[in-house]
Each structure stands twice: as structure tokens, then as C-alpha cells.
């Protein structure tokens, strides 16, 4: 695939690329989700021909495809652009009823989306295989040709026109025209364009961040243009305006999107003409920028629906129409012009009202009444939307309240009047606040002829907690997060160092004994020097005695400063205590930092799970089974890196469950199960772990054939086979040998790539287990650490070296007397609580140089750490158990290579490097050792 990147080296494009990747991921996800809905609808169509296709769905998909098209065009990804364009055409044709959506169509679009995802994926990682999407493109083209809906490569403007039409679900083509640029005389070109009302706050804040940056860039660019301009600058401006448009349209801010679109048009014309932007035009553009900035600021503060974009749009269109006309921003002139031709292109003054009709409770056939009201409304003006929707009304019998929005040139009274039909208790019509009339007398808010008080049932605006600002966000490079994580890890190590230093100081400062001894000594000397000690008096001459006393006095004097210093030292004990308090404080802070940094990397698993709807659907369709995917715990958060890594293993597992686990509908029926099988994906916390379960209610594992297969492959000895429990047999499917079986489906289906799954999960320091019941189903449980960076470990001393082993793998620690160690088949084993556990010295399992790790186990008593993985156990002989510690995992492969039996390294408090044992690999090494010695 060749991307004709317009100017890859430009920083501008570089910065856009990141945004593009982010946004295209979101758009593709949304497209996929919508397509699944559409697919369901197509399937239900086979049963019930009466259903109408959800127009909003098609519109939404069209918009998503369109956004993607625009973004890719901006960055010069022609292939993506072409394909999205085709997809867009399909949805457009479907909207216009030129193309009926069938299974073939959805299938084709699924394919196209896969190709798109692959192409976007290639942008992220250029190393992959080139994506060839010509076949899909041709297929779509054929589809459109067959439907007679083939379109010439539509220009951006065409698509925009179509998009404009899509903005109002009920709009007729003439109105679509009405919001086109030609309608500059219209009082408010943005009238009738409403923002989506339920924009999630976090989307809004993301948009606001991005828009503010873009608007800043736009302002700077425009100001630069006023000085000396170049086509290049204009192109940048164009790109920026497009970006604002794209992101606004993405989250449903249609008004802002439209304004930005017109700004883009204006700039585009300037680029096309390679000409100049007259100063007034720049003025208008700057005003628009300011207006948008204000709008964004309002959105941030949750003040929605009161934007001033309408007048700006009018000025902008005027400027565009008469780029040469000097009086573009001469408002009075325009309003005069408007009054001069009041019935020109559009009705002079149209207002959008929001209305509500409350029916008598227990009114029979209220749905029909509502339909009647809906028809009356249609005569008065353009009904923007109503709730319940038109389709629903036909089916509804009971209805308390019918809501609608209407754009009309009639006053509120005339709208409300005809609605009083039998059974109606109350009618209220109020101007729709999101659509203020841009100028002219503001209609009072309670203009309806009925009290504007809304019944409590009316759903408030989504921003119910008015004034509550959406949380601000910052986009951060993951590299910086990693850096922060590293630093937090270092802090943990430093904390441990402090703690050790403190311990040493404590030992040094513990000199109470010395103080006491010195005090005693000094008292003794004092007595001696003052001659109070009687027993030496008689034996010495007085002068001799005097000189001795003099000497003793001097010693006593010398002793005094020593005493003082030792006393000072003993006061250092207090300081050491304070040091410990400070370290304790540091403990809490560093824990807090570590936790916060880890939280930064946590993302919900939901989006990953959502991908599997598609996987399950494809399998169900391919195999003719009925499979439902149930998802639970999608809010569970995991390390971002872990989520990225989990995709492939989960696909394997879900595919296995749906493909091999679930039986055909007939088989299921025969087994007394519902025809539709269920695959469940669930994530939850358990202790310090995240557990992900993949469950199915299928036929379960066939232990007999697994065992047979394992015997054939020589994975299990004949003698052992007799004694194996079903659970042990089930664990055999993780063996690499079984996965290479020629036709894995023969042995109840499992096994394909299961060893790959296991390896991958173990790379993530996780464990995987399987349990299955014949006829009932299979559960695969993945247990993963909360984060990859920190591992709760047991620290042990083996021959002077410190080793860490994941707490997860430690079953128990026992002390075994030398005499109770037996030798079975040339290998020592110990009996632990009735279980026979092989006793292993680290130096035997792994090849150490010199005498490394050899001394363990010579004493009369051996300390064994019993390590377990997937039902297998071994007892590792250690010299001393040091204790439990949370270690920061450092990769060895980063600077060296992967080492068998070693999962990584960690830095101890004293700065030494400790190795983290890889328990599954260790067990494998021991098994290999046993196998080779048996030969």
C-alpha cells in the first residue's frame, strides 16, 4: 500500500498523525458497533418485514465514515480516503433508499472496516504486511452500481451537502439546500442545526482541549497571514479548521462543526485561488475563531445552548459570497437586505420550539392520539424529532406524555392551539433554548400559552448538574508515563535504602550501656582522685599518693569530654527515631506516588471486550451456530500495556469457546439446552489480581480423547495416565505438543494455540487455568497482576544470592528434615502434608557458573519453598527466607537477552541486583531434567 503522504516531514502532519490515529480508532470502533446493530436489524428483517431501518443509525455511520474520510484526506492517506469514501457512499445510498441493506452489504462493510483497521494499524506500525483493499473497493463499487446509486467521486462539498441533510432527520431536500452557503441572506444559517444533546462530559473535555489548541493555532496563523502569507500557511490553516470541524462533528457539536466547515470553505477557496485573503475576511475569520473559543469555554462550564455562532456564520457566509464586497461585516445592510426579500429563500423568521403534550392517564389508544398530534404538527412546520418516535407510536397503546421539537414560522400560541384534542390534559410549547433567534426580539422563555413548568417526569438536560465543569484532561505520551513509573520505582528502592541506613544507625546509636559504664567509671575516678577511697591510703607514701591522685584527676578530666560526646551520641537515638518517622512518612508518599502513577496507566477493559462481539458474530455466522456474547465487568481497569497484550490471547480463547465449545443448535436442543449458546467474558478484581474469565455453556472438554492424544504424542506415560484426575488431564491442553495436533477439533476442539495463550499470559506474569465439565461448558480463568511493573514477591537467600519469586506461585514454605527426604527414581522428594513434592536445588535446575546456588540443602534441615503452577509443584531448597517484598521488575532483555528460568531482575535496597525466578520455566526445566535422567 502506498500512502502518498503529502509532506511527512512537516511537524504539523506529525502532530496530526497522532490525533488521526486516536480518532480513527474511535471512529472505527463506533462504526463496527453500529454495523453490528445494523446487522442485527438485517437479521430481524428476515423475520419481520415491517420494521423500518433506524435512520439515525445510518446517519451516524455515514458521519463516522465521513469524518474518517476527511481526516485521511487532510493527512494525505489516499488509500484510506478512497475506501472510506466508498463506505460513505454506501451509507449515503442506503439513507436515500437507493440501496437496500442486506446481509451481503453488511458483510462487505465489515470487510471494508477490517481493511481500514489494518491500514490504520499499518500507520502505527509500518512493519506489517501491506494491505490490499482493491477487491473490497471494487466490490463496493459493484454494489453501488447494481443499486444504481453510483456516484461520481463526490467532492467534499457534495458530501457536506449530504451531511447537512443528515443533520435533520426529517428534513426535505429543499431544506438541505437552505442551509447551504448560498443562503447567506438567511437570518441564521445555523438555525435548525442542533447539537447532540447527550455528549459525554469526558468527550467534551477532550474536544475542548483539542479545540483550544487548534483555535490558538488558527489565530496565530491568521495573524501571520495578515503580515505576509504563503500558500503553505493557508494550507496549515485549512488543516486546522478541518480538524476543528472533524472533532466537533465527531462528538455531535454540529453547530460548531458547521461554522468550522464554512471557515474551511473560505480558506479552501483562498488556497485554490492561490490568492489573497482580504483584510475584512481575515477579520471575519478571526471573529469566528473568537466565537468558537467562547463557545468552547461555555461548553467547558456546561453553559450549553447559548452560543453566538449564528451571527458569526452569517458574517462568514457573507464574506465568502462577496469576498470582494467591502461591507461584509456591515450588519445593518444585511438585515435590510433580509427585510427586503422576506420570503426569498427561506421563511423570514423560524423559531424552534420544544413542546410537550400530557395525556389523560389511562387514555386508551394514546399512541394514535399522539400520531394525530404529530400530523397536526407536520402541517404547522418541520418536526425535528419527537419522542416516542413515529415508528414507536404506531405500536404504543399507553402513553403519558408526548414530546416534540418543531421549527416553524408560527408563534408558540398557534402551535399549541391545534393540539388540544380529546384526552389531552395539558400542552406546553416553549422556545427551544438551544436555538435562540439570533437577533430580533428574544422570545420570552415562557412564551408558551401554558405554564412553562415542566412536569417532574421531563428529563432534564444532560448537564443536570449545571455548573459542574467536566474534568480537564491532558494528553500525555505513554513514554513519559513510563518514565514517571521508573522514577516512582526508584523512589521505592531509595525508600528501602533509607530504611536500611536507619537500621544501621539505630544499632550504632544504641549506646546506653556505654553511657552507664562511663558514668560509673567517672564516679569511681572522682572518688579516687579526691582520696575518698580509703583502702589504698596506708600502703603508699603521701607524695606517691598525691602524684597518683594527680594522674587520676587528669584521666578523669580527659574522660569528661568523652562522656559528653557519648551522651550526645545517645541523644542521636532520638534523631534516629525521628528518621524512622520520616521514613515512614516517605513510605506513605512513595506508596501514594506509585499508586497514582499506576492509576494513570489504568484503562477500562470494556473497549477490548467490545471487540469480541464482532469475533463471536463472525464465528456464529461462519459455523451456522447461534452464539451470544455476554460481557460483564467491562469497567474493570487494567494497565494499558496489559490490555494491548491481552487482545490476541483473548481472541484465541473466545474463538475456541464459540467455535469448538458451543454446539450446533440441533445438538444443543438434543442436549436439552437453549438453542443459542452463550459465551461470557467477565473481568473482576480478586485480591491483588485481575481475573478474566472466558466461559461457555458448550459441550466441555473431552478428557478421554485429550488423554488419548497425549498418550499418542508421548506427553504422558501410560502408567501415569491411569492415575490422572480429570483436572490434570484438562491441564494437558496447555502443552505445546497438543496444539500441533493435525485436527484439533477431533479432541473436543480445544488446543489450538493454547500453549501460545499460556506463554503470552505468563509473559504478563499471569496464570491461566481451565476447568470444564462434560456437557456443561468450559471456564478459562486468566489471573493477571494489577500491573506489570511491581510484583509482590517472596525474597529468599540461596547460596548468598538473593532471589525473588512471585508470591502468586508460592504455595507454602516448609521445613523438611534431612532424614525425611526420600529418593525416588534417583531424584530427592519430600513429603509435604501427604503430597510428594520433588526437592530441587536451584543449581540443579538452572545452570550456574562456579558454585553458584550449590550450598543449599546441606544442613540437617532444609527449608523448602513449594512453588506451584498449573497443578504441578516443586519444592525449591533455600538457605533462608528473607521475607515478602514488593519488587520493581526490571527487564533483563532490555539490555541483554531473555534468560531461561529468570523472569527479570529487581534492585534491592542495598543496590544489589536480585533475580526474579520464572516459576513455570523452572518447573519445565525440572521436568526436562527428570525426563532426560529417565532415558
Amino acid at each position, binding site marked *: 500500500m502506498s500512502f502518498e503522504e503529502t509532506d511527512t516531514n512537516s511537524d504539523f502532519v506529525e502532530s496530526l498523525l497522532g490525533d488521526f490515529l486516536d480518532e480513527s480508532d474511535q471512529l472505527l470502533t463506533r462504526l463496527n458497533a453500529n454495523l453490528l446493530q445494523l446487522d442485527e436489524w438485517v437479521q430481524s428483517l428476515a423475520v419481520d418485514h415491517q420494521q423500518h431501518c433506524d435512520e439515525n443509525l445510518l446517519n451516524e455511520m455515514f458521519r463516522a465514515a465521513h469524518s474518517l474520510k476527511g481526516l485521511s484526506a487532510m493527512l494525505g492517506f489516499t488509500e484510506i480516503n478512497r475506501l472510506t469514501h466508498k463506505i460513505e457512499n454506501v451509507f449515503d445510498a442506503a439513507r436515500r433508499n437507493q440501496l437496500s441493506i442486506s446481509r451481503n452489504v453488511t458483510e462487505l462493510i465489515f470487510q471494508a472496516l477490517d481493511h481500514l483497521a489494518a491500514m490504520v494499524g499499518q500507520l502505527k506500525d509500518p512493519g506489517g504486511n501491506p494491505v490490499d483493499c482493491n477487491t473490497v473497493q471494487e466490490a463496493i463499487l459493484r454494489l453501488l452500481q447494481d443499486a444504481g446509486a453510483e456516484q461520481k467521486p463526490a467532492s467534499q462539498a457534495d458530501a457536506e451537502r449530504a451531511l447537512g441533510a443528515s443533520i435533520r432527520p426529517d428534513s426535505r431536500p429543499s431544506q438541505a439546500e437552505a442551509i447551504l452557503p448560498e443562503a447567506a441572506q438567511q437570518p441564521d444559517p445555523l438555525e435548525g442545526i442542533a447539537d447532540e444533546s447527550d455528549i459525554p462530559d469526558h468527550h467534551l473535555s477532550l474536544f475542548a482541549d483539542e479545540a483550544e489548541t487548534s483555535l490558538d493555532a488558527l489565530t496565530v496563523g491568521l495573524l501571520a497571514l495578515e503580515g505576509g502569507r504563503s500558500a503553505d500557511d493557508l494550507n496549515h490553516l485549512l488543516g486546522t479548521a478541518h480538524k476543528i470541524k472533524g472533532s466537533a462533528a465527531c462528538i455531535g457539536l454540529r453547530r460548531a462543526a458547521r461554522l468550522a466547515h464554512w471557515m474551511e470553505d473560505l480558506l479552501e477557496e483562498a488556497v485554490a485561488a492561490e490568492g489573497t485573503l482580504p483584510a475584512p475576511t481575515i477579520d471575519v475569520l478571526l471573529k469566528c475563531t473568537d466565537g468558537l473559543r467562547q463557545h468552547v469555554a461555555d461548553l467547558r462550564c456546561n453553559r450549553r445552548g447559548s452560543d453566538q455562532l449564528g451571527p458569526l456564520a452569517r458574517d462568514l457566509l457573507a464574506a465568502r459570497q462577496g469576498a470582494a464586497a467591502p461591507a461584509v461585516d456591515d450588519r445593518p445592510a444585511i438585515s435590510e437586505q433580509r427585510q427586503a426579500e422576506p420570503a426569498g429563500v427561506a421563511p423570514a423568521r423560524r423559531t424552534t420550539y420544544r413542546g410537550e403534550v400530557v395525556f389523560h392517564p389511562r387514555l386508551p389508544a394514546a399512541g394514535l392520539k399522539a400520531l394525530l398530534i404529530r400530523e397536526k404538527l407536520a402541517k404547522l412546520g418541520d418536526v425535528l424529532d419527537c419522542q416516542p418516535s413515529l415508528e414507536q407510536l404506531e405500536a404504543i397503546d399507553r402513553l403519558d406524555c408526548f414530546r416534540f421539537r418543531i421549527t416553524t414560522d408560527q408563534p408558540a400560541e398557534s402551535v399549541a392551539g391545534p393540539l388540544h384534542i380529546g384526552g389531552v390534559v395539558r400542552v406546553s410549547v416553549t422556545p427551544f433554548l438551544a436555538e435562540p433567534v439570533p437577533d430580533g426580539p428574544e422570545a420570552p422563555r415562557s412564551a408558551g400559552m401554558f405554564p412553562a413548568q415542566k412536569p417532574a417526569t421531563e428529563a432534564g438536560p444532560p448537564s443536570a448538574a449545571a455548573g459542574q465543569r467536566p474534568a480537564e484532561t491532558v494528553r500525555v505520551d505513554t513514554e513519559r508515563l513510563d518514565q514517571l513509573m521508573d522514577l516512582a520505582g526508584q523512589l521505592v528502592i531509595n525508600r528501602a535504602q533509607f530504611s536500611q541506613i536507619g537500621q544501621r544507625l539505630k544499632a550504632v546509636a544504641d549506646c546506653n550501656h556505654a553511657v552507664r559504664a562511663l558514668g560509673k567509671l567517672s564516679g569511681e575516678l572522682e572518688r579516687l582522685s579526691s582520696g575518698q577511697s580509703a583502702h589504698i591510703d596506708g600502703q603508699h607514701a603521701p607524695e606517691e599518693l598525691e602524684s597518683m591522685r594527680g594522674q587520676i584527676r587528669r584521666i578523669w578530666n580527659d574522660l569528661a569530654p568523652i562522656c559528653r560526646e557519648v551522651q550526645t551520641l545517645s541523644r542521636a537515638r532520638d534523631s534516629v527515631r525521628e528518621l524512622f518517622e520520616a521514613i515512614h512518612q516517605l513510605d506513605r508518599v512513595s506508596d501514594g506516588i506509585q499508586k497514582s502513577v499506576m492509576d494513570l496507566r489504568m484503562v477500562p477493559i470494556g473497549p477490548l471486550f467490545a471487540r469480541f462481539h464482532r469475533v463471536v458474530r463472525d464465528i456464529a455466522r461462519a459455523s451456522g451456530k447461534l452464539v451470544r456474547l455476554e460481557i460483564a465487568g467491562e469497567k474493570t481497569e487494567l494497565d494499558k500495556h496489559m490490555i494491548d497484550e491481552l487482545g490476541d490471547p483473548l481472541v484465541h480463547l473466545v474463538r475456541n469457546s464459540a467455535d469448538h465449545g458451543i454446539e450446533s443448535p440441533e445438538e444443543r436442543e438434543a442436549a436439552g439446552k437453549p438453542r443459542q449458546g452463550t459465551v461470557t467474558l467477565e473481568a473482576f478484581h480478586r485480591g491483588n489480581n485481575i481475573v478474566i474469565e472466558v466461559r461457555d455453556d458448550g459441550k466441555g472438554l473431552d478428557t478421554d480423547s485429550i488423554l488419548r492424544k497425549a498418550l499418542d504424542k508421548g506427553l504422558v506415560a501410560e502408567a501415569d495416565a491411569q492415575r490422572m484426575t480429570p483436572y490434570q488431564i484438562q491441564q494437558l491442553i496447555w502443552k505445546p505438543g497438543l496444539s500441533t495436533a493435525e485436527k484439533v477439533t477431533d479432541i473436543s476442539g480445544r488446543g489450538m494455540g493454547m500453549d501460545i495463550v499460556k506463554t503470552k499470559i505468563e509473559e504478563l506474569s499471569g496464570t491461566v487455568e481451565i476447568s470444564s465439565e462434560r456437557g456443561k461448558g468450559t471456564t478459562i480463568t486468566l489471573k493477571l497482576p494489577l500491573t506489570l511493573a511491581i510484583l509482590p514477591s517472596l525474597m529468599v537467600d540461596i547460596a548468598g544470592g538473593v532471589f525473588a519469586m512471585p508470591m502468586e506461585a508460592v504455595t507454602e514454605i516448609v521445613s523438611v528434615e534431612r532424614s525425611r527426604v526420600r529418593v525416588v527414581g534417583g531424584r530427592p522428594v519430600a513429603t509435604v502434608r501427604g503430597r510428594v513434592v520433588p526437592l530441587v536445588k536451584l543449581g540443579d535446575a538452572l545452570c550456574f*557458573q562456579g558454585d553458584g546456588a550449590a550450598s543449599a540443602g546441606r544442613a540437617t534441615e532444609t527449608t523448602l519453598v513449594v512453588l506451584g503452577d498449573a497443578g504441578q509443584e516443586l519444592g525449591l531448597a533455600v538457605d533462608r527466607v528473607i521475607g515478602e517484598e514488593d519488587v520493581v521488575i526490571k527487564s533483563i532483555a532490555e539490555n541483554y537477552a531473555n534468560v531461561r528460568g529468570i523472569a527479570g531482575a529487581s534492585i534491592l535496597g542495598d543496590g544489589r541486583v536480585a533475580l526474579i525466578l520464572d516459576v513455570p520455566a523452572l518447573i519445565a526445566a525440572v521436568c526436562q531434567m527428570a525426563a532426560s535422567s529417565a532415558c
Partner: protein
Amino acid sequence: MSTATCEPGVSEHDAAHQSGSMQLVSFKLGDETYGITITKIREIILVGEITCVPETPPYVKGLINLRSAVIPVIDLRARFSLAATELTPDSRIMVLHVGSRTIGIVVDSVNEVLRVTQQEISPAPPTVSSSGNEYMTGLVRLKEDLLILLDVDRLFGDEATQPFTR
């Protein structure tokens, strides 16, 4: 654990490179003198505690903690099949950039930083740069010594990318 005694300045090297000369750090292994271009050297540290790693070839001494990064240390004597000796107070670890990796080598002593011109470097004779010794890229005649120029990327390229086998 260690003190940095040399932190080469990159700009200096660039200037030198442009004038057709390069800076080398020379060091001793037994009786032989070797040189590595200064741009490959991150720092030179004292030999601290080295953690042995199982399942590695004999010339991998183990892992050390270099300011919270875990890096492997290679015993260059063992790598060049020279007789093993005890560490002396002169022994140093030279921390090198090899590709994207950081690797330490234990050397008997670090001598000096030299500046040599391209003309002073003669190609290694074929007897030296035979197969298996491609990492010896040249010889520099010093006053009373012959310096063997090492290409660390060739020397450790394999180790850095391939896991060791027993």
C-alpha cells in the same frame, strides 16, 4: 556502588570527527592494549557487586545496577579466551552503548583518552581479523605499544540480539 570517572563530551567528539581524527579510550587486558571510540562509552565505573545469572555463557559475569537500570557485565578476558585473573584495584567496568542497549565490560585497567587521526589507523592484518574476530577493526601504533581497535557493535551485536544457549 560506583563513581563515574569519565563522562565523554559529545560535542568535542563531533569537532574531532570533522577534522578526520577520533578519540579513543585505551584499556589493558593482560598485556594487550585495546581501544574503543569514545562515543560508544557511556561511563567508566568501579567494579561493584555483580549478581551471577544462570544459563549464561562463562564470559557473562552477571548483572549490575547502574543507577536503577539493570545491565549485563561481560568479562572481556573470558570473551577473548585470556586467562582469568582476580579483580584488582585497577579493574574497571566500562559502560558501553551497543545499539539500543547498555552493556558493561570488565577490563584490567583504563589507561587514557587518545586522539588519533584516520591516517594513524592501519587495517588489522588478516591473521588478526580472521573469521570470528571481525570486531577487531584496526591497529594503532603507539610509542611502545600496539593498540587494537575494537568495534563494540560487532563484538556484542550477537549477544545483544540472541539469547544464549548452553
